[in-house]
């Protein structure tokens, strides 16, 4: 999806990174996400996969989720994918020239965890042992390059600037996140879904997806298990303006596997944030292509246009 996303304009401070005691009430967020494909001609049959349901996590409760597809699919099947995300498969059997997918969810999110708790040297969080017997099964699919996330020495070197030997993982991660935020320019339209990482690196510019891919590559390059996370971010209107419906966008960031106890630790380099109660996690994958919001094929249809609208709002508890 090549939509640009909106940086939060205000209201987000570094305080979100402070530990959130479990007892604190969770923030209740709602998201509406509408995807529309308009075909030039008629398509006779359509097959799609969608990753739109927020992922149930210890730090995120899914209260409600509805998915509506127009025209109505003849067959819709929900399942868990290879990475434990909720995936929808649907078939449209009748002729159509427009496909609309509406997703609506309510989640309750925890504030960001205390990254400072990750106090062991970062090297010790690497999945252990070549044969894997000692390692964490969940992590092993996230240490290798993929077609969208190649590894390169210069990226690993970039990571090592902050991942100095023996540095506590939490500290290194915060520094790493801030480093990307500072060094890379957020430039909507500079890249699209298929822009290679090398280009992002060369121009030091891109959007959230590029930063997430880049961070994942850096971290895999130094031996950590890292994932691409897709989701949404709560944004705030400018002072004096009301929030516009559909003006938000889907968002992406990265996660590091910090062992069974800590699970995935998520950071958002686009906003230099530790992921907390303003982020809604949808899916965790090796890269974007594992869990795009919607993908599909149809027979016929020809050229088509894509329109996406996302609205994230805070609900009163």
């Amino acid at each position, binding site marked *: 999806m090549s939509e640009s996303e909106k940086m939060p304009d205000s209201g987000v401070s570094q305080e979100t990174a402070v530990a959130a005691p479990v007892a604190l009430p969770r923030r209740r967020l709602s998201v509406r996400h509408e995807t529309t494909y308009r075909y030039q001609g008629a398509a006779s049959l359509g097959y799609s996969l969608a990753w739109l349901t927020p992922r149930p996590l210890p730090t995120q409760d899914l209260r409600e989720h509805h998915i509506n597809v127009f025209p109505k699919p003849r067959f819709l099947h929900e399942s868990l994918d290879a990475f434990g995300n909720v995936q929808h498969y649907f078939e449209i059997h009748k002729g159509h020239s427009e496909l609309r997918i509406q997703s609506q969810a309510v989640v309750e999110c925890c504030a960001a965890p205390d990254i400072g708790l990750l106090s062991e040297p970062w090297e010790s969080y690497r999945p252990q042992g070549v044969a894997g017997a000692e390692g964490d099964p969940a992590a092993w699919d996230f240490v*290798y390059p993929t077609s969208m996330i190649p590894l390169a020495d210069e990226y690993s070197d970039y990571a090592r600037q902050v991942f100095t030997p023996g540095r506590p993982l939490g500290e290194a991660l915060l520094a790493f996140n801030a480093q990307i935020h500072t060094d890379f320019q957020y430039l909507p339209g500079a890249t699209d879904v298929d822009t290679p990482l090398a280009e992002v690196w060369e121009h030091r510019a891109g959007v959230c997806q590029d930063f997430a891919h880049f961070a994942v590559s850096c971290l895999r390059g130094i031996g950590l298990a890292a994932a691409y996370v897709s989701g949404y971010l709560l944004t705030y209107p400018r002072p004096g303006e009301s929030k516009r419906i559909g003006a938000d966008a889907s968002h992406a960031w990265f996660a590091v596997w910090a062992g069974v106890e800590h699970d995935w630790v998520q950071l958002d380099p686009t906003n230099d944030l530790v992921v907390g109660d303003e982020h809604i996690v949808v899916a965790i994958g090796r890269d974007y292509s594992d869990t795009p919001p919607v993908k599909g094929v149809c*027979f016929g249809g020809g050229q088509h246009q894509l329109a996406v609208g996302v609205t994230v709002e805070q609900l009163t508890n």
Partner: protein
Amino acid sequence: MMGKDLDIELAQQLCAGYQPPPATFDEMVDEAGKLRPHWQEFAGFLQQCDPSALSHLGLETVRRLKEQGVHYNVYQDPEGKRRTWQLDPVPLLLPEQEWPALEAGLAQRAQLLSLLLQDLYGPQRALREGLVPYELVMRHPEFLRPLLNTRISPMTLYAADLARGPDGRWWVLHDRTQGPSGAGYVLEARFVTRRVLGQSVGQYATAPLAQFFHQLKRHVGALAPDHQDNPTIALLSPGIGNEVYFEHAYLAAQLGITLVQGDDLTVRNGHVYLKTVDDLRRVDVLIRRVDSSFCDPLSLRPDSMLGVPGLVQAQGLGRVGMANPLGSGVLECAGINPFLPALARAWLGEDLKLPAVATWWCGQDKERKHVLTQIPNLVIKQIDRPGATVFGDQLTRKQQQQLVDQIKTTPWRFVGQERLSFSTVPALNGSELQPRHLVLRTFLAGDGEQYDVMPGGLTRVAHEADSELISGQSGGWSKDTWVLRKSGSMRDVLRLRVASHGRHAAAALTSRAAENLYWAASYLERSESLLRAATAYQTRYDTWMDYGFEQDARVLNQWLPVLQLYLPGALPATPAPDTLRQAMLIGTSGSLAWNLHRAIEAVYTVRDLWPADSWRVIEELEELVTYAERNREVVGLDQLVQPLLNAMLAFWGASQESLALTQGGLWLQIGRRLERVQNMALTIVALCRQLHEGDEAMVLETLLDAHGCTVSHRRRYGMELNYLTVWHHLLLDITNPRSLIHQLQELESLLHFLNRSPQFGLTDAEKILLGVLTQLKLAEAREWAGADNSRGMLARFLGELSGRLRQLGTDLDHQYFRHTQPITQFAR
């Protein structure tokens, strides 16, 4: 055939010129140069053959394979797309007592691999317990994430390539788990070898093959969802471009199942359906010969044109059985080899019964060091590129260094394998027998626990002496493999075709098959019309050359628009037959050669419908066209026409003999009739527009000639020949089998056959035809035989008729053919 009292000395004379390389196991003679006991009888037979008899065996084999169109296509073959499969009639003989141990070892390996497959896509115990490294699996391109945690059936089909080392033991070289090919070739090898060797080796008792194919079909059928009694099974092929397409068609025909390609199938509600001429028909099981990654453009490779969107879901939901399941290609990873012994002990509580050739995976430190220091003594393979095999000792120093660098950069990608000196077997090379290294591909079918092993397999030998690079792609030859028995005979194999249909649903006629037959017939009929028009032209041209009458030249030019109906590009006035011939044989769209190639290609697409014994006519037709094209500068038109017409006649004869109307014959007939009436109508329209009054007698003569009606017209009207007689004879005379009206009546009964519910009335196509026929019946030739404007009336009449028949064709197309629209991937 000599008896048991065979003179061993004589047999050893035979071996005198047969020199196996040192330090190898030879299948026929032992280290002392003596015949092994199980070869004595066969060697006796060979000994009786003088060099000319031996070379005759080879030639006879080639002749039979050519005749039946047994192909093995070599990619980027300079000799053209299709190449005759290379079979050596001298089989590999294996003693009966050797087989049970091999069988047990293979079945164990299949069981273990099947367990591993289900584990890797499920609980991943092998990975969690450190029995198989994560990296090996996670980085393998055929480990397909969309299949993870979905239902994966056991590995039904398995093939293993074996080689015998100098110590006489068999070793596993490769595992074939994706869509193992070759079993069909074994069957064909048995038929041909058996026939070529004839009665001379009739006493030999060989383990029969037929039973294995029954077992295979049973195991495949058992994958049907809900254990259906009468499952519909289809073989999914990439199509005629595939190197072993012959086998796909052959197996489908032998097993009595439907041969399909991706766009013959459609997924609805997670079920797989076949597009047949009648309706969508549920497919219960697919024998998959398309690599997994190409099978579903939705979940797997988006650029694949060979797959079916939704197939991953259909398999995952358990709504279609798949042999082998999508994702099974990961087992072909050569790096798994070193981990199988431990896996066998852990899961089966047994040691591996059949050893695999020693393999070191470079993803492990110690193993990598070993490989890096031993490159010249090893075979180096890449786990993600099965074709990339390198013999260490054949590398230059520089190449070795490059390889070392590559291994150091991506160690996980490489394995080193011990170099085994493969055993040798006598291979027929011209008129003598020479030792050649061999690899034996064995075949299994099973349910995950029990596996049946084909007795024998496909033996392949290197083309060159000393070469151990054995593959069909590099010019290797195949052989039949006889597992000798003390009793029984080889004859059982021939029973396969009759007995194999069993309780499985009859093969359905796919829309693709109907469509291709229809078009094959159209293209052939069109070619025939063109050939006849060209011959008629030449006859007239020769007269002109002989006598030089101006009128002949005029007639020729009036005839030219008829030729222009078919031939692309403008022709000069009164072109010489040579010019015509060249225009017919150039490759451009619309030419004769082009039409014939389209026809042949269409027939190839439905080759499973074609009995092997009548396939010869298609081979001959193709050879003729190819020959004519290559020699288009020198072949005379008359040399070209008659053989081609004969070949086409043979095609029609054979198709009538072998294709039942319900099995596609109907579509051939419809395509042919429709094309023929169109050609006749358009020919007359073209002529009417050009006719020079005064020349009509000669033009009409040529017209009759081009439609093969000269004789019947003369019988009916004597020497009388004018508009009236010709229009009546060609268009309206029901007693003339070549007349327009007769052809349309034939078409009418064919369309009636297509009508599924005649009690509810006529189909759209039938209605169109009835309208056309009625008009024709009411027409009077006299109206078209009068003054000048009556030719214009005829042209209009026939022009309109042609338009309505075109509409009829379109209707048939819409109702019965596939109409697959191009697949569009959503934008991201």
